[in-house]
């Protein structure tokens, strides 16, 4: 335990200089732990990782991990001259020409994926991965490798889902390879076209890659700290299914739905759906795959009441920390006992309702005026 704490401490204080994680060019770290990230770190580690770091520091249980920073990304792109090559490939590209767009995209992606990292970055990643495995008490921990874009989640310019996530990755080489795949996902045809359309300059685009311990989820899903259908901020709404959250996020299954009172944490509504499929890990291929839910479990509540309450409590703390309604991904780990088994995988500001100013009729008036106007309005019966 001591060594783990020491390790974090050492790394979390880059100025001690004990690890050569800093870029010799800019003095910024190329790799860092999630707990070192804050919400101000978006430029360095992108939206997802900065948000995870913020959560960890708010006391929320998040699977541990580290990130290749945007500095690391820039060094990678610069070291081998990829950046210049990519720029030249994009010059004069007609985004209306679907074929040309796709061809350019493939070429760029192959280029990125085939190019090894510098020894320095490889060593930093390998060392962090080893430490993460030690922290997880396994020789080589299974991780999720996902992109964390700096432009992601900007209001009105949601990139969500446009970059990739690779699950159940195991071993340093696999981690490194998938990190490059994440980087290359910046250059899908759609992403290129979108940026050109929106006028984002390529030089402004940067990506970070997060590497995070996989939660071996028995149940997972999403949670909103307001009611997604009416914007009611007094509730927390949870969608859940067995296995990984993919089935819920993608909409492939009608999840169980729970509405929890945010103030008292009572479950005020529960809808148990028939859940016919779920995602789990294939132990042989180490890949996530879709399988059928056994018939007798299809109509069974996928989260127990205590977990719902605990999850809602976490949602409430997260909202309190950020001071705004949040959209959260979570998982219940099947290897751990209740009390320490619920993990928050992601949290980002809710964007739909937050942009609408919900005007309650005739607010700001005195009680007497409100009573009168409500009487005049009456209660609709039909």
């Amino acid at each position, binding site marked *: 335990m001591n060594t783990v704490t020491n390790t974090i401490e050492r790394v979390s204080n880059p100025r001690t200089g004990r690890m050569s994680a800093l870029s010799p060019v800019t003095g910024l770290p190329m790799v860092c732990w999630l707990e070192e990230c804050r919400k101000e770190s978006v430029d360095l580690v992108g939206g997802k990782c900065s948000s995870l770091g913020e959560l960890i520091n708010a006391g929320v249980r998040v699977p541990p991990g580290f990130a290749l920073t945007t500095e690391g990304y820039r060094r990678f792109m610069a070291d081998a001259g990829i950046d210049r090559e990519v720029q030249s490939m994009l010059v004069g590209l007609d985004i209306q020409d679907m074929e040309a767009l796709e061809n350019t995209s493939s070429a760029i992606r192959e280029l990125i994926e085939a190019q090894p990292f510098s020894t320095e970055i490889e060593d930093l990643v390998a060392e962090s991965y080893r430490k993460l495995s030690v922290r997880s008490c396994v020789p080589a921990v299974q991780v999720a490798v996902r992109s964390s874009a700096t432009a992601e989640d900007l209001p009105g310019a949601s990139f969500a889902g446009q970059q990739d996530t690779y699950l159940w990755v195991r071993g340093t080489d696999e981690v490194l390879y998938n990190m490059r795949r994440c980087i290359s996902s910046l250059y899908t045809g759609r992403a290129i076209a979108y940026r050109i359309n929106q006028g984002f300059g390529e030089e402004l685009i940067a990506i970070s890659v997060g590497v995070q311990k996989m939660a071996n989820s028995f149940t997972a899903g999403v949670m909103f700290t307001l*009611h997604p259908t*009416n914007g*009611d*901020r*007094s*509730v927390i709404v949870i969608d859940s299914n067995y296995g990984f959250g993919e089935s819920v996020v993608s909409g492939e299954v009608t999840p169980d739905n729970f*509405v929890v*009172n*945010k*103030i*008292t944490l*009572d*479950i*005020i*509504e*529960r809808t148990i759906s028939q859940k016919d499929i779920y995602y789990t890990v294939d132990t042989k291929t180490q890949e996530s795959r879709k399988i059928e839910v056994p018939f007798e479990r299809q109509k069974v509540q996928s989260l127990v009441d205590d977990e719902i309450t605990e999850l809602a409590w976490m949602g409430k703390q997260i909202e309190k920390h950020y001071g705004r309604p949040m959209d959260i991904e979570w998982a219940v780990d099947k290897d751990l006992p209740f009390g320490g088994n619920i993990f928050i995988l992601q949290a980002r500001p809710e964007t739909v309702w937050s942009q609408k*100013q*919900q005007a*309650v*009729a*005739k*607010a*700001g*008036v*005195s*009680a*007497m005026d*409100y*009573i*009168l106007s*409500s*009487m*005049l*309005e*009456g*209660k*609709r*019966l*039909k």
Partner: protein
Amino acid sequence: MKFPNPHDFKTIPGTEGWERMYPYQYQFVTDDPERKEYEEKAFWFYDGLHYPEAIYPFDTIWDEAWYLGLSQYNNRIFQVPPVRGVDHRVINGYIYISPVPVLDGAEIGSRVPNFMERAGFYYKNWNELEAKWEVKMKALIKQIEDLPISRLPDLEDISVVTEGLGESKGYHLIKTYDDLINMGIQCWQYHFEFLNLGYAAYVFFLDFVQKLFPSAPLQRVTQMVAGIDVIMYRSDDELKKLAKKAIELGVDGAFTFNKEWDGIQAELKTTAKGQEWLAALEVARYPWFHVSTGTGWSHADKSWNDDLNIPMSGIATYIDHLKKGLEIERPMEKVRAERDRIIEEYRSLINTEEERKTFDDLLNTAKTVFPYVENHLFYVEHWFHTVFWKKMREVSAIMVEHKMINDVEDIWYLRRDEIKQALWDMVTAWATGVKPRGIKVWPKEIDWRKGVMQKFQEWSPPPAIGTAPDVIQEPFTIVLWGVTNSSISDWAEVTDNADPDSITTLKGFAGSPGIVEGKARVCRTADDIRLLQDGEILVAPTTSPSWAPAFAKIKAAITDVGGVMSHAAIVCREYGLPAVVGTGHGTKIIKTGMMLHVDGSSGVITIQR
């Protein structure tokens, strides 16, 4: 949703002529085309809240009293802009009511300034006016308590002559009866002085919060005005005090070894300590034992003072709990702390400053009106009514003595104006020294009416008739009866289900949160509370303050009638017990001993068959 036409109801065979048991203006009619058309176009819903069973002819007095009271305050005193009064009808002994909207927009507008001035005055001066109300009300109760009801003597007392009184006991009886009725009506005049406005303030506070937070459960919103001192709990508090006193005096054994009041009293009388306790009881029971075991609306609702076995079993429960070292006080500090936390958290989630301002103002108004909304029940429905029923039984006893009716309890089969006729008949015959005609008229009529009432009780009134409007604006209709499409269709669903033994789920209002499982105990009256075992789930038509001791034993409560502001819901929230209220038919479907799953957060009861 389709509701039956009010004029299509067939008379139940054997009840032909039932209409004469009720005021003539309560009938749906076809002989006046204009009235017939009005009745068809209006929306009438069954007032199961006040009348879970067919109403007795005499008990119609309170229906007429509130018909007048509510309507006059709405329409002639405060001028609620969009609604006049609430109209009443009767079908097969069941009362149907209908809010009367003001349809002309210009007229609504012209009523607004009056309403703002008049209602505004009451809201602004609420506390002073309420203090005046209490004085008036107590004076009226004193007056009815002091009202002497004298038998008819063979020879008037000599004082009539020596003091030149110039009035007979016969005249007094007729006059006293009139006084009794008039006081009853007057009491109901006072009843509505604050109630319309009180409900409006309370309802629209709830409404505002639910507009801000559409998913906020009503039970949680009502918690924002919890923990305010109201006298509703006072009677129960007196039982707790008496339980403590019994232990202090060392006479608590009397409650363990005797189940009936007679036995307890006999044992206590034998010792000085016991007599001291009995003296304390005498102090406490007036007025605090004037609590009805029902809503107080029916003559059948007894009070603790009518049957001391009921409070004694409550005292025995508290003695038992105290000896086991259990806490018997209501957790008021906890309730208040939780209330403040809930207010603060909801308040902090409000998006704008303006909304927060309205919230604060409405909350303060709701807190101001809340004590009246609760307290009037004790003064009117409990204290006054208890005394009133007792006095009426004294009048009835005199009629029995003169053979006008066979039994004291027969008087309820007569309309109050028929009783007056009968008293005239009886008193003039007494004065003249002949037999009254009524002795051959009323017993026969009452026998027939008993048969009719029996058939009425077996009939199931539809929840609504006539034409449903798009919008309801009458505050009572919205709050008290919770009239919405879904509530009416929920009730209709169970009514339509042919076999009550096959029903496994029952819906009501989510009265108090929490989920429990346990055995049902159906208590139709407060007498049955004595059968309750620790940890059972109480299933009752409705509850009232006199049921309070039951809540110390139970795990959850289910009632047929009432909304989230009903007694059972409020008490359960304070004790932290789940409650489902207003199920419509709980006591008919659930049987004692059934295993129930009660979800007080969603209002769903599951019967495990």
